[in-house]
């Protein structure tokens, strides 16, 4: 895929790590600020999309390829499921919090909520990227 003008490329290159970081921030602080797994995952995926728009699809696929995204998505889903199972293993109900709650208002608080959000973040990133890649290949036509 052809890229865009050098100005856009340079800016995309500059912005990519920071948007990635911002997405990670939104994911990790889901229990303290607005946002959470889904918006954060979308931001991370969007930063990859920005790379695709500016450079073409190869640059983004070097980082996260199709198969890797598929595996990541499954892993995210499995992580959520297993975190849910922790409740069962501890002898209480499904999805019940079995981690210590931590100090209110700090980063390590809320028990399993941040972990769940992390899993959702990974999953959403991979999922949105997969949809995007699949649609791009779809535009490319079948050989």
């Amino acid at each position: 895929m052809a890229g865009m003008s050098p100005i856009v490329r340079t800016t995309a290159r500059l912005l990519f790590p920071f948007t990635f970081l911002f997405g990670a921030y939104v994911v990790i602080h889901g229990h303290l600020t607005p946002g959470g797994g889904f918006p954060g995952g979308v931001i991370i995926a969007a930063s990859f999309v920005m790379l695709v728009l500016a450079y073409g699809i190869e640059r983004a696929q070097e980082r996260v390829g199709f198969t890797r995204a598929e595996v990541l998505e499954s892993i995210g889903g499995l992580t959520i499921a297993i975190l849910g199972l922790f409740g069962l293993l501890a002898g209480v109900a499904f999805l019940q919090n079995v981690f210590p709650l931590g100090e209110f208002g700090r980063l390590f608080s809320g028990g399993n909520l941040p972990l769940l959000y992390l899993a959702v973040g990974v999953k959403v990133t991979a999922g949105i990227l997969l949809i995007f890649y699949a649609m791009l290949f779809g535009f490319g036509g079948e050989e």
Partner: protein
Amino acid sequence: MMISIILTILFGASLLCALRAALGPTAPDRVVAIEALVALMIGVLVLLGAYYNASIYLDVALVYAFLAFLGTLAIAKYLEGQGVET
């Protein structure tokens, strides 16, 4: 008080932008108008954050700015006529 006056004026400005977005003879016209609208909305969000004294509104503004930027890039890419090809 000041803030409500400012918000009223900004509302008028965003109405003008929306008018251009509705009128705009070509697609880039609309995009430009909407870009201006987004910038105004970011300003409004930050003002509201200052009004409620809650910095959580700023995250929203940042996300909004980023996604608007991305949307503009995507539309620009589409308009360049090359489409999105692999």
